């Protein structure tokens, strides 16, 4: 294989998206996604067993589509990368079993990789190699983490994480309180445009005295959720209409304010000139705007991948795999396992 621009097939099945991506070096060749959201709707929510079965049904057609899009055959692939964790174990297993089978059948190495690290490295497909070091903000329905990515993307140090709810979860749960559909993030984003972000002063988690020292780069969104619930109920109890747009705008402002403040503080205090935002919440328009303003003011260069590379996808897994191949990292042993909480400090098995 050519180690400077290896062709890597990436497989992502950590939750309810079946993602297959193909890259050559930093170049994105294919990014196919099948979602099992419709199947979960029949059961009224995500059921792990249903997700696993849906991956099983979707993965082979997705592989075929990815090869067709990339204009290549499976045996053109130099290496396989697959998400080994964190995620739903049964769902991860489908991807890992497929990756191992392909590795044996094609006689190419397999890398079991870290889902969180993939969300940061994916930006290389759109904006080229990440400068060294970079601070990554990963915000999605399941994760909210600040990561220091150093030594040519080989050392990933967690700086902070959420102590309770993830940022995307906070959006979803507030949307539920306001009677908006799931997933709540896009709805809050849309409705907030008609509201006043300063209408209600919702609390910023971990901004009390002493918190800044104890939890410099952590997040907490549980108190915000409670504050919104109380505010809405008080309005209803008083027989007044709930100004949904103002609540949405004020909640969004509170979440985005904390995320961007911590991101900028991490960059400034660690002497880092580049920030990357990844994960589904990176699609939030207010987060993008505020992060751009605050990073620009602090002299930090901000990189945000386009939305289809922010949500779970196979290309991000392939991007990290491509990195590992180019860095000469040995492949994972064939008996590597899935793990629901693979620490972010490990890029791969």
């Amino acid at each position, binding site marked *: 294989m050519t180690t400077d621009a290896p062709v890597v097939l990436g497989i992502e099945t950590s939750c309810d998206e079946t993602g297959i991506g193909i890259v050559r070096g930093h170049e994105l060749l294919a990014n196919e996604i099948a979602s099992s959201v419709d199947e979960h709707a029949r059961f009224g*929510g995500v059921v*792990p067993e249903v997700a696993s079965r849906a991956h099983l049904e979707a993965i082979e057609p997705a592989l075929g589509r990815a090869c067709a899009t990339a204009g290549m055959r499976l045996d053109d692939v130099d290496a396989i990368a697959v998400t080994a964790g964190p995620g739903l174990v049964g769902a991860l297993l489908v991807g890992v079993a497929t990756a191992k089978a392909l590795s044996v059948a094609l006689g190419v190495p397999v890398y079991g990789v870290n889902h969180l690290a993939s969300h940061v490295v994916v930006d290389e497909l759109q904006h080229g190699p990440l400068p060294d070091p970079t601070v990554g903000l990963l915000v999605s329905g399941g994760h909210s983490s600040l990561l220091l990515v150093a030594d040519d993307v080989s050392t990933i140090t967690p700086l902070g994480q959420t102590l309770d709810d993830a940022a995307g979860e906070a959006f979803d749960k507030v949307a539920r309180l306001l009677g908006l559909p799931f997933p709540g993030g896009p709805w809050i984003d849309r409705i907030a445009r008609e509201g006043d972000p300063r209408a209600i002063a919702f609390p910023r988690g971990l901004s009390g005295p002493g918190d800044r020292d104890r939890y410099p780069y952590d997040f907490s969104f549980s108190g915000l959720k409670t504050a919104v*619930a109380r505010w809405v109920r*008080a309005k209803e109890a008083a027989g007044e209409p709930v100004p949904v747009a103002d609540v949405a705008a004020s909640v969004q402002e509170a979440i985005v304010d904390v995320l961007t403040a911590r991101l900028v503080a991490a960059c400034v205090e660690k002497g880092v000139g580049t920030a990357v935002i990844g994960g589904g919440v990176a699609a939030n328009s207010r987060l993008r705007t505020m992060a751009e303003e605050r990073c620009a003011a602090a002299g930090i260069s901000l990189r945000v991948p386009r939305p289809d590379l922010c949500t779970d996808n196979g290309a991000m897994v392939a991007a990290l795999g491509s990195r590992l191949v180019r860095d000469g990292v040995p492949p994972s042993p064939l008996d590597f396992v899935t793990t629901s909480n693979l620490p972010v400090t490990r890029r791969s098995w």
Partner: protein
Amino acid sequence: MTALTTRRFAVPTAASMRELGSAVGRACSGGDVIVLTGELGAGKTTFTQGVAQGLGIDEAVTSPTFVIARVHRHASGGHDLVHVDAYRLGSALELDDLDLEADLDTSVVVVEWGGGLAEHLSPTLLDVDIDRSDHEDDEERTVTLAARGTGWSARLGDDAAWPT
């Protein structure tokens, strides 16, 4: 010591919610199932953080909503904590389906939104109801612990085990 089927607490702050959870954690034994009921923002996760503390688990207890269930290991051989969010589960909870990497006989299982879904998991169960409907103007909650089966009613009767 008299057996009690319910015990009620006025819980004014997040710190006291954690303290009550911690008392429940200390009273737990392997195989216990705790079912948490309370609306969004009532303090279910805060209570569970207290349970973890009472069990002697150091790691952060974050929301299990996204992954449905999270296993928190005890670092030195005590009971593991299995923290489940059943909100998105449509039908009766089958812990086997969650692919948990934990021995349920020696773990303590806390199920949020588990009312009507988790009752079959164990013959002795502790129901925890967090209610703040009488407290529009302050942060106070009323927390009711209710035993199902004899195991918990004996423990609820032990006055020394509970905050006043």
